[in-house]
């Protein structure tokens, strides 16, 4: 390896580091007179040069001489994230000949600002200390502040925490700084590499004043995060260079650790005199002459005694949600330094706060023509994983989408309209014709109920998600509806029952090809946590696969015990499933269960079960035809006009889901109770039960969702009415006993209608009588028995019915069935 000190002369010339610096001081001052904002139009390397790494002896530069009194010799750690160490002058504005009138306002005495900026170290330090001492945020919801007294100064508590824990890092929320002192915030964002060291200095002074006895490994480092300029990667432009930015993205690659030299140690080969040289903008200037013995070119680099710091390259990519359609995601390079190395893994969603940099391409000494492109990267100061807590607890913050004021007003206006419910439901999948109630059901599913947490009282979570099953004839655009929903919600998953296994739905353990570690790969259900999981061809799913849905659809969790990994994952997902009837065409003479052959345990977990049938009536056909024909000649603009924009709908749902959590009003609870009692009553007259507590819960959820649609914090009677209506509609369609025409919920809960059960008993009794009439025949032919029974009975007896009757008698220990013979017992 060649010595890094051997910087070729030509290259250095090309870089043209130093002579120019002096010249620009005058300029810097005149520059200051302008409003700093106005300079952001175009970025020039001048700014890079002027505002490049600055340090002021303390705190972060190496403690070489006497330590400062307050800091007690705690070593400072270099901050490569802010740029390499370099001493830079402070400019005394008043003593410079070309007076700048604007910048040096009325402050008394000398006003020192850091060269190239308008930052006065003293003022800045003072302000920040005041911020630390005074700032409180009583409404804070950040998880990091859990356990802190919100009415006390927040950051003083954090300092206390540092003194206890000994982790010398102080995370500062930029929003707090902004609300406390907008000017300070502006300086922080515009000149991070000058202001952050000042903050460091301030916090250390304060800390050691407070806790003079505490011992820290290093001096405290301030890590600001959540700069307001939170940006989409796509919006980064030359104006952002050297500013503090926060961007979000997904880590796609991390490099190995790179040792980066911070300080080179040289030793003279002749007299063993040693000297240290700090890195200056990525270069080390090799001393040509030994200062001790004046020998030229006698100094050699000693690697072991040089100082290195860790560095890692992290590549992040735009998150898929931020991207315009039809484009590929952008990537950005991020450098992580020191303890931020290995903080993130590929696949993590992160918010990165850092300084945006642009470096000219390396100059080739042999060529005067060079590539005129800059390399850009971000020096990371703070990482914040956004999906860190996916496995436990709600990540409310990540969910929160930023809505502009305008948008909120539009949404509220929309919500105030009396027909908002109808409007929204018709905006849903406009290409699908009619099925108004189904659309309404899906709309309520999109909003969901209110999340209730009784885990503190030991009753656990109550499901807030609404599950819907669509079943019906093929070709009734079920799949299309599913596709639409999948495209509408941010966390939707779309799977087909035919193609998915239990593993694909839940989670599986696999060996990471690179690290050889076991990793948990999550499946569709977990991925759609807080979203909607659309499952097409639900009927084609294997029983094994379906069985995992039981837990998900009621408890909303997923238990995994595989390859030594035992855990419970959250799967608070609403399920939207579509199933085809077994005989490919819906048989109206059969019940839902018989038509789709799904276990009733699963069916009862669906809040709404809709039949999508071909209504086969003329008026409907006509409207359908009209609708379809219009699809084929209307221009796109015309379609847009007619319906609500999908984006508005998306925002509306997101807003309601985030901000609205309706509670039951007194009247509404009364109405619900009545509704439930009524439902139970309907059947009780005929010995049937038409409602179970699960149905009551469904009603509550639906009513809450409907209140959300209205942006109402209270569930009122109208919500309950609509919930009742919708529930009844769905029931009417799916739980109607085809034999009697009555609604009978037991079809869903036991898989058999009350009349069918009665009928089964009758047949069993008839069969028993028949057998008894035959007298003492211990064994009978199965077929013959069936024929006999058919001959005797006045109603048609199907083979299934006969089998069921036999089974019922077998259960009574009256007979056994072996193969084709029926034997009497006892």
């Amino acid at each position: 390896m060649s010595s890094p000190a051997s910087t070729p002369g030509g290259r250095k010339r090309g870089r043209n580091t130093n002579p120019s610096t002096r010249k620009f001081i005058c300029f810097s001052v005149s520059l200051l007179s302008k409003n700093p904002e106005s300079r952001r139009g175009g970025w020039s390397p001048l700014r890079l040069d002027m505002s490049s790494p600055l340090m002021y002896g303390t705190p972060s530069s190496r403690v070489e001489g006497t330590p400062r009194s307050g800091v007690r010799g705690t070593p400072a750690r270099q901050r490569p994230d802010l740029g390499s160490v370099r001493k830079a002058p402070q400019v005394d504005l008043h003593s410079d000949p070309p007076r700048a009138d604007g910048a040096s306002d009325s402050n008394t005495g000398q006003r020192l600002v850091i060269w190239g900026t308008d930052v006065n170290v003293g003022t800045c330090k003072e302000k920040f200390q005041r911020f630390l001492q005074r700032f409180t945020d009583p409404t804070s919801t950040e998880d990091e502040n859990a356990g802190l007294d919100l009415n006390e100064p927040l950051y003083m508590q954090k300092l206390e925490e540092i003194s206890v824990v000994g982790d010398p890092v102080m995370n500062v929320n930029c929003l707090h700084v902004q609300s406390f002192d907008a000017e300070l915030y502006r300086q922080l964002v515009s000149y991070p590499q000058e202001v952050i060291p000042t903050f460091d200095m301030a916090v250390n002074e304060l800390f050691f004043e407070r806790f003079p006895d505490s011992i820290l490994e290093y001096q405290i480092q301030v890590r600001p995060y959540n700069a307001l300029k939170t940006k989409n990667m796509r919006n980064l432009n030359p104006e952002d260079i050297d500013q503090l930015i926060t961007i979000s993205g997904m880590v796609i690659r991390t490099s190995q650790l790179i040792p980066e030299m911070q300080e080179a140690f040289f030793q003279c080969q002749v007299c063993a005199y040693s000297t240290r040289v700090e890195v200056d903008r990525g270069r080390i200037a090799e001393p040509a002459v030994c200062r001790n013995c004046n020998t030229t070119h006698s100094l050699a680099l000693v690697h072991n005694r040089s100082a290195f710091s860790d560095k890692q390259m992290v590549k992040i990519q735009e998150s898929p949600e931020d991207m315009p359609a039809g484009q590929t995601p952008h990537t950005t390079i991020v450098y992580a330094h020191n303890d931020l190395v290995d903080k993130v893994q590929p696949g993590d969603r992160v918010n990165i706060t850092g300084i945006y940099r642009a470096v000219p391409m390396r100059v080739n000494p042999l060529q005067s023509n060079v590539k005129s492109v800059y390399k850009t990267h971000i020096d990371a100061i703070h990482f914040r994983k956004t999906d860190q807590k996916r496995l436990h607890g709600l990540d409310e913050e990540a969910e929160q989408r930023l809505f502009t004021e305008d948008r909120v007003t539009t949404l509220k206006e929309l919500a105030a309209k009396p027909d908002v419910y109808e409007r929204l439901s018709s905006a849903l999948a406009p290409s699908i014709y009619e099925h108004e109630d189904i659309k309404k059901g899906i709309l309520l599913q999109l909003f969901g109920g209110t999340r209730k947490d009784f885990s503190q009282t030991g009753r656990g979570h109550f499901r807030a998600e609404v599950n819907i099953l669509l079943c019906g004839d093929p070709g009734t655009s079920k799949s299309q509806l599913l596709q639409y929903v999948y495209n509408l919600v941010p966390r939707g998953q779309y799977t087909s029952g035919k193609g998915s296994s239990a593993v694909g739905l839940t989670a599986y353990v696999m060996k990471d090809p690179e690290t050889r570690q076991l990793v948990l790969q999550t499946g569709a259900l977990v991925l759609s946590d807080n979203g909607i999981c659309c499952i097409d061809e639900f009927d084609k799913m294997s029983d094994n696969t379906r069985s995992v849905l039981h837990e998900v659809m009621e408890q909303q969790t997923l238990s995994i015990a595989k390859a030594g990994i035992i855990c419970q994952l959250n799967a608070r997902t609403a399920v939207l499933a579509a199933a085809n009837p077994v005989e490919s065409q819906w048989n109206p003479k059969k019940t839902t269960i018989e038509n789709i052959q799904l276990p009733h345990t699963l069916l009862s977990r669906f809040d709404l079960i809709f039949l999508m049938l071909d209504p086969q009536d003329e008026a409907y056909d006509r409207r359908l035809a009209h609708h379809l024909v219009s699809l084929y000649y209307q221009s796109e603009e015309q379609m847009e006009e007619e319906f609500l924009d999908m984006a508005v709908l998306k925002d509306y749902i997101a807003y309601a889901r985030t901000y609205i959590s309706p509670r039951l009003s007194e009247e509404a609870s009364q109405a619900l109770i009545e509704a439930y009692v009524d439902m139970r009553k309907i059947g009780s007259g005929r010995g049937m039960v038409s409602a179970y507590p699960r149905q009551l819960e469904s009603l509550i959820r639906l009513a809450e969702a409907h209140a959300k649609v209205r942006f109402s914090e209270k569930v009122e009677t109208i919500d309950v009415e609509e919930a009742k209506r919708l529930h009844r509609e769905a029931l009417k369609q799916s739980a109607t006993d085809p034999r009697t025409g009555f609604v009978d919920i037991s079809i869903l809960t036991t898989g058999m209608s009350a009349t069918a059960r009665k009928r089964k008993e009758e047949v069993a009794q008839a069969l028993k009588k028949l057998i008894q009439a035959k007298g003492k025949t211990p064994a009978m032919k199965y077929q013959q028995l069936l024929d006999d029974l058919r001959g005797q009975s006045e109603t048609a007896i199907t083979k299934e019915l006969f089998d069921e009757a036999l089974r019922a008698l077998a259960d009574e220990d009256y007979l056994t069935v072996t193969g084709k013979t029926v034997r009497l017992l006892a």
Partner: protein
Amino acid sequence: MPSTPDWINEPLAVVQGLFASSQNGPSSEWEAKAVEFFKDRLKEKDAHTWVPSLNDVPLHYLKPNSLVKFRCLIQDMFDPEFYMGVYETADPATKTKELRCGKYRDVTECGVRQQVDYNSRNTVTAERQTFYCVPIPGENAWVKDSYAGSSQARVVPSTSYAPSRQKRSYEEDDEGDDMDTQPQKQREPHSGQYQHGNGDCKRLETEAPSSQVGSASHLDLNFPLPGEKGPSCLVKVYEDWDSFKLNDTLEVYGILSVSPALSALADEKDASSSFLDPSESMETAEEQRVHSPPASLVPRLHMLYAKMLRHNNPLLPSVPLEDNSACKEELLSSTLRDMPSVRTELLSFFTHVLLGDALAAEYLILHLISTVYSRRDVLPLGKFTLNLSGCPTAASFTERLYRIIQQLVPSSFYLGMSLQNMNRMRLVPKKDYVANRLVSGVLQLASNTSLFLDETQLEPGQLDPTGVSNVTALGNLISWQKVDYDFNYHQMEFSCSINVLIASEGRSLLPSDCQVHLQSQVPPPHMEDYMSSIPLTAQLNKLRLYLSVARLLDYSISDEVTKSVEDDFVDMRKDDPQSVSADDLHRMLVVARLLSLSLGQTSLSRDSWHRAKHMEELRRSRVEQHKSVNGNEP
């Protein structure tokens, strides 16, 4: 023929001139002016034909820093880059400084002993976007030839060019007529230089391209389709890059940059050169290779102006150059008038090709002019995937059919659905995070490309996981006209409009909008002779034009016809509700739409509706007969 104007040879001089004058005057709008200037020039009559095209002129014939055009598809979008928009050069000896413009260049330019002053306060950093562009995948030979033939560019070989006289696909036989368009100038120095060994020279010429392809393959130019040739290009976009989308087809007019410095910078990277320089360690070797390939293989093109191509049919005038709209109008109306007659011609030709089956021929025409004209939420409208079942396996019927389609449509691809192909091929583009690029797949195609799936090649056997996902991808493409690109951590959906034609023996295992069972009128033994006739070029051109025009026509349905269609539907349902579903109506409406367009009618007439209905009935009765041929029936 006028001599090549300066703005084609020296576009940078024009830019520099505008830049310099803007430095003196107060007007800062020089950038817009520069773009306007070139747009205006290109609007002049035939001006765009003088610009040499990267598609048909080999790179080494083109003058560096001259204006060229490139007909291409955006295969990948790289990250935006910052460059020196304005920079200052200083001469240390004389202490003079000079402002220069860095736009439309890759490399800074300095005079002798001048240096770029990085610390100058006059430097302006600007942003540009890079697209990786490849020639339109599956573009058929006749399209390439025709575009090349219409070019009037005078290609003056640069003094240092490596002589290998290859202008485009060298196996083509109508070398004669393109000779005329090629200026004499070019051939003379060429023959002069290579008097010795004429035979050698000839060989050199033909081999040169193949060696280039050979060297390119180890670089992997990332063409969507296997076996593609042609230059790929890094296009630098200076404005409005958000308006471009992946897979858009463009004709880019831009300044060619092949500076060897670009490659030099890339080559120089050896391990020890610079350990400390941060800019070096952040890119892997693969990434370097992809993002800064040698300029001799992947030239850079600095876009001045780009025109979206709605079609790549050379016989149809390209749309956006506005001033010739009158002549376009004229051409359109004349074709419109001819359409019914051309259609008859095409129908009889197809009937012939499809072994005398007129119904299948009708449907084939409809299929070839179909396009996704709109999307209603997730539903693509206007797609018309045709499943031609009952294809004879004998006499390589499917290959012949494809060859004929190839002669008619501008771009197409034949995908034999053999087990091996399905298991091995990469259909869906995948992001390679190491090299940081989108590795292309067969389904990354431009709009309106014909994809011919030959299912007769499928034999029993097992599909491995790749095979299954490939088949799923094909299914998604057909039903939703979208391809989910694989980004490893997530998938991203890209809409497309690809005409899929499935040739199979029984009903296809893939979904389709419409299945027609072929009824051969010709006994198998005679098939071979039967199919070998192909119309003449002039006739072919008429058919080609017809197919492209029919696709671009607008369409509407009057209220009156709407009413009658509704009535019809209600009546049909009345008779037998099971037989006609909403899906059938969808299909009938598409058929009616395409049928009208194929006849040159821009609105639906009652006649066409009835004809469409009739066709559908015939087709359905035929499908009924052939039910249960294999197990793919629902």
